[in-house]
């Protein structure tokens, strides 16, 4: 199947990526080439096959490891906020969301 420019804009909106109208055509064209490639998987009969989310599933136990619910991380707020684009009073600043 082939994506229309409208669909491409919708996907970009979902992905939170601004698309320059001038590049939409090229983006859609290349995306459609990739979709042409991945569409090949449709023809494969997979009835009775379970999806495989973990690459060792089927050969090794892959249960998620649990740990005790204890505080293990020290407070590194200053180190982490030193590399942030905008902080104030220990908080990350973003444009106002609620008026």
């Amino acid at each position, binding site marked *: 199947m082939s*994506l229309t420019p409208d669909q*491409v804009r919708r*996907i*970009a909106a*979902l*992905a*939170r*990526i*601004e*698309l*320059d109208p001038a590049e939409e055509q090229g*983006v859609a064209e*290349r*995306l459609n*080439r*990739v*979709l*042409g*490639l*991945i*569409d*090949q*998987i*449709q023809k*494969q009969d*997979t009835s009775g*096959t*379970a*999806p*495989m*989310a*973990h*690459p*060792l*599933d*089927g*050969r*090794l136990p892959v249960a*998620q*490891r649990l*740990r005790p619910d204890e505080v293990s991380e020290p407070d*590194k707020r200053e*180190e*982490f906020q*030193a*590399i*942030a*684009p*905008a902080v104030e009073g220990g908080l*990350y600043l*973003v*444009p*106002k*969301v609620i008026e």
Partner: protein
Amino acid sequence: MLNATVSELSAALTAKKISSVELTKLFIARAKSLNGRLNAFITLDEGRSLAEARVADERRSKGGAGPLTGIPVAHKDIYCTKGMLTTCGSRMLANFVSPYDAHVIERFAAAGTVLLGKTNMDEFAMGSSNETSWFGPVRNPWDTGRVPGGSSGGSAAAVAARMAPAATGTDTGGSIRQPAALTGTCGLKPTYGVVSRYGMIAFASSLDQGGPFARSAEDLALLMNVMAGFDPRDSTSLERNKEDYSRELNLELKNLRIGLPKEFFAEGLDADVRARVTEAVRWFESQGAKTVEITLPNAGLGVPVYYVIAPAEASSNLSRFDGTRYGHRAKQYSDLLDMYRRTRAEGFGAEVKRRILVGTYVLSHGYYDAYYLQAQKVRRLIAKDFAAAFERSDLVMGPTSPSTAFALGEKTEDPVQMYLNDIFTIPAPLAGLPGLSIPCGFDARGLPVGLQIMGDYFSEAKMLGAAHRYQQATDWHRRVPKETPL
């Protein structure tokens, strides 16, 4: 010294023929003199490297040194290094100084190796030619008009050009093995879960795995002894006993069963690549190994399956880059949503955006079953093909890449042509299996050809053993690239 392997350098350090400071100076000088042409390093920090070398020399003089103490190692710029730029080849992280070290970086530091620098890579490890890096393409030392492969192209080129004796990389669909093949170096992608990914910037979490580059299989084993091991901070890290990856270097080849997947030798394979790989397989037969034809009937769907699963996981992983906590933030925006959208439009390059868009699409309502779920089902069929293959063979061999290094710009216009480069490297990580690439000769243009060796889960030591035996009888891995003579 520049052409020596890690094991030879280790012996020289132990015998006090050279100090780590002298060795580090040698490689820094070499890296500086070639980096303008090859662009293999994003960051070189001479002061830091020399300080670490002095500590290593002290440790060697006091005792308590390991085999790798004092050896300079370059790290792919996907591994977080505390207090040092960690860019992942992206404008998004072009200003990111990591507040912590990756597990792999900690392990190499604990072993006493010297951090030589951070190597260039495709942006967020998405690419097969190292042309998607925000910091510009890496050039192949065998022919600087050609690509070194990717995504770990900087690490591969640095090791090939003798700018570093060893380096780290990461492999999601071939990002260690394919650049190793294209640059005539050795690279290993371990079994999923063997090397901790803590501090290794995530691309596709059901596939990503770190591994080493070096100039010999013997060296890869030494590096694996440092890199591998359980880490509770990575939920996919496997709790296993410590392994000595050098233990099977003298592998008995007599009656070793080598599976040759007929799909890996089908049409579309470059004639010189076929010839060199076949010659390498013949050598194993001459040592008493038995070859068996095997079939991986679903491997042909590996590339389309991969380009559903990897972008889907990437679209989720890369949602963290939103201009809020670290990295790039757009200068102008109207509201929060606009800040996200402009930040991501500016921070990501075309290939990364393309994969995020593909991933968003295949996970979106109405398409999830047809794409993502179906891809996960075919993924299981591919894993089952391998399980059947390893009942009949101890190791599987074939070409690493369908062709030798291609020209810069040759495949950048058509993403599908670029993706098909990884046709032989994608199946193993889909099944979580280990694979390595070693050089096995040259094509008519003098470009290196890679032999891929795959094994069942946790058979890295056996794979390295087979590779080491081959390297004892051949000298392809000792050849120095023509454009970067010593």
